[in-house]
């Protein structure tokens, strides 16, 4: 005689809401105590934050929105910034259509920011412009989704940065706006993007140089990396802002923002180099031996075999470093450049807004948070897509 397997229902206490609560919040007496304390803490924090957000006077932020976004960028030239945003909206939309994944999250984030901006009380022309960006975003999605121009899109992205940079700076017929007049989020993003773009190749070079067979090159790279990693960023910034002009011939003047970019690139390159070195060391010797056996010379081995694998392994650390660079752009406030943090202080210094510091700090902290968090979220998604650490 066989027993019919009787399916026992799990005990009521371990399923459903009650079960979940029991398991996760009230499993033991001290867990229950912790839960109660945690609830209290959350209540105090959330109600405090809610009170602050709803009762504080946010006009300091709305009145200075232009400053926060572009700083002292000339008013009659603002169309250039707006055009740049339109270009990027389209590209982000197209990427969403082509690649989905991370690009989709980025596109949705951008779209929600644009919608929020369009709903806020802004002037008619600005609302028109926000909606235009939104339309372009979805147009880009449609184009990308139906034609899938992968290769073209990569080229467009690579091309867009210098083109937009030139548009903002002024070239040919359009009046020049030196970077000394850039500010706010525009300057913050410019510093971060240029810093990342320049520090990456420099860091890879340094890392490769550190592994070089030539003692002279190796010593130079090690010296540079260790020296830079041992000092605070602010000293490097000061060096570039205050001392560098002394080292250059008098006829050459470099704009202050450009000097800050150089500082970020030089500083971050040392950290990138260490990350890349970690990646290089994780590649088994067999790989380079196999490549050589196939007849590749050492440069090609490095370029085609070693680096692609090594760099893939370093994505999480690399993105972490770039997030840290992005946050560190706030340090240029100390040397007098008008990025977000300094604009915040300047705004809180206007006689009608004296002392409204909490609002501006919360506002710019939120900007930094959204961007930095998106970057780390994106990197986690990318890691999964590329399957890093799964072999």
């Amino acid at each position, binding site marked *: 005689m066989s027993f019919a397997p009787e399916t026992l229902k799990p005990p009521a206490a371990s399923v459903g809401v009650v079960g979940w609560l029991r398991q996760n919040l009230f499993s033991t007496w001290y867990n229950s105590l912790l839960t109660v304390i945690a609830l209290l803490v959350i209540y105090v924090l959330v109600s405090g934050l809610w009170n602050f957000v709803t009762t504080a006077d946010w006009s300091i932020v709305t009145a200075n929105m232009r400053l926060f976004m572009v700083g002292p960028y000339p008013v009659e030239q603002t169309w250039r910034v707006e055009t740049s945003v339109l270009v990027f909206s389209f590209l982000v939309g197209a990427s969403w259509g082509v690649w989905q994944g991370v690009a989709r999250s980025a596109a949705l984030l951008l779209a929600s920011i644009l919608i929020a901006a369009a709903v806020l009380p802004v002037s008619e022309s600005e609302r028109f412009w926000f909606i235009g960006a939104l339309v372009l975003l979805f147009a880009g999605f449609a184009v990308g989704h139906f034609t899938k121009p992968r290769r073209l899109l990569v080229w467009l992205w690579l091309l867009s940065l210098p083109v937009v940079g030139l548009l903002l700076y002024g070239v040919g017929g359009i009046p020049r706006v030196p970077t000394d007049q850039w500010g706010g989020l525009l300057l913050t993003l410019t510093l971060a993007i240029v810093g990342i773009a320049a520090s990456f190749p420099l860091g890879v070079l340094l890392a490769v140089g550190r592994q070089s067979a030539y003692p002279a090159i190796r010593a130079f790279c090690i010296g540079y990396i260790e020296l830079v990693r041992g000092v*605070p960023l602010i000293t490097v910034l000061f*060096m570039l802002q205050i001392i560098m002009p002394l080292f250059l011939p008098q006829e050459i003047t470099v704009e202050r923002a450009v000097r800050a970019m150089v500082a970020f690139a030089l500083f971050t390159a040392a950290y990138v180099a260490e990350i890349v070195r970690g990646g290089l060391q994780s590649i088994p010797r067999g790989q380079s031996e196999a490549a050589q056996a196939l007849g590749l010379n050492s440069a090609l081995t490095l370029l085609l075999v070693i680096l692609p694998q090594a760099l893939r392994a370093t994505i999480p650390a690399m993105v972490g470093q770039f997030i840290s660079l992005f946050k560190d752009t706030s340090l240029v406030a100390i040397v007098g450049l008008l990025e977000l943090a300094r604009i915040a202080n300047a705004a809180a210094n206007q006689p009608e807004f004296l002392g409204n510091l909490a609002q501006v700090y919360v506002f710019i902290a939120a900007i*930094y948070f959204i961007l*930095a968090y998106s970057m780390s979220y994106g990197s986690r998604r990318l890691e999964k897509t590329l399957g890093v650490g799964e072999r």
Partner: protein
Amino acid sequence: MNSSLPAPSAARVPFYRDIRVLRILAQIAFVAGVLLVGWFLWNNMVSGLARIGGTFSFDFLDNAASFALSETSLPYDPATDSYLYAFFIGILNTLRVIIVGIVFASLLGLLAGIARLSTNWLISKIAQVYVEIFRNTPLLIQLFFWYFVGILKLPRVRDSIELPGSIYLSNRGLALPWFTPTDTFVLWLVIAGVSIPFAYLVYRLLGRVRAPLIYEWRGGWAFLVWLALALVAAVVLDPFLPSIPEIRGFNFGGGITLSPEYAALLLGLVVYTGAFIAEIVRAGIQAVPRGVVEAARALGLSYIQTLRLVVLPLALRVIIPPLTNQYLNLAKNSSLAIAVGYADLFYISNTIFNQTGQTLQVILMIMAAYLVISLVLSAIMNLVNSRLKLVER
């Protein structure tokens, strides 16, 4: 590869195709290039300094500093003490932040890291929100926030919040009861110092006793011995007098006051670095295989015991290297003191080069000082790391 080929005796390789020659040439060229750039910069600097009418020298460091400092760990008289001494005070102030900051950031990070893995969903979420918020916003803005929005908005000194135990909190800082040393203080310090090796001896001796109550708590016993010695000496010598903070004139007199600038910097560094350490601790604990934890629980160890005796010692090996990086970051980030007006190494040096105009020399000194701090810190951590490393068979 070439070794398997017949020796190239017939066709001699011309020197410009000889890899050995080329290698040396390349390196010479590289060094020459570096030197050329260096020479170019140096040349410009010399002509630049000549334009100013200055020379590259450090003689100015002997001159009297003549600027007052709000916080000094050693007696400092601006009228007579030199710039070099002021710089040294700056180093001490920086170390004060770094050391205290590292201790508290580690504690906070450990706590948040463990909380992040708590089985209690709420606790783990709170820890996660803390980590994400503070890791993803710039330290500078956090510092501004703590100082200008947090501490400066505390009540003014006349309306200080009084906490139990004669502790006063205001936007002039936290005033705590403290002690004033008397004449016998140095003697007491010597006795307390000598007692340390003695307590260590006790510790070693107790290590041979196999009674669990003695053996397992030998650290505590040794500490008690030291404490008893120090206390007896204190009672006999009467080395310090209690000093209670009270408002005298404009500020609190008596006791000890933790300045708002120091507090803001410390708070900012601890909370910021703590968030990073929490993630490191979490990763470290997660790296401990589940089986080990289950085995420990199977042996009857409690949750806390498992954590303390099994998980953390194992996790520490994974934690130490990235933790070293965070400690170094904290040390370097302490240079942001200038944002809140705390007189650290960087801020004081700023004043020095502003007064003397010897910008290049002072910036080089700052860099050297931070470099030394970084090197010492990483040397200490490497030592710890090598002590903890798994002894491989």
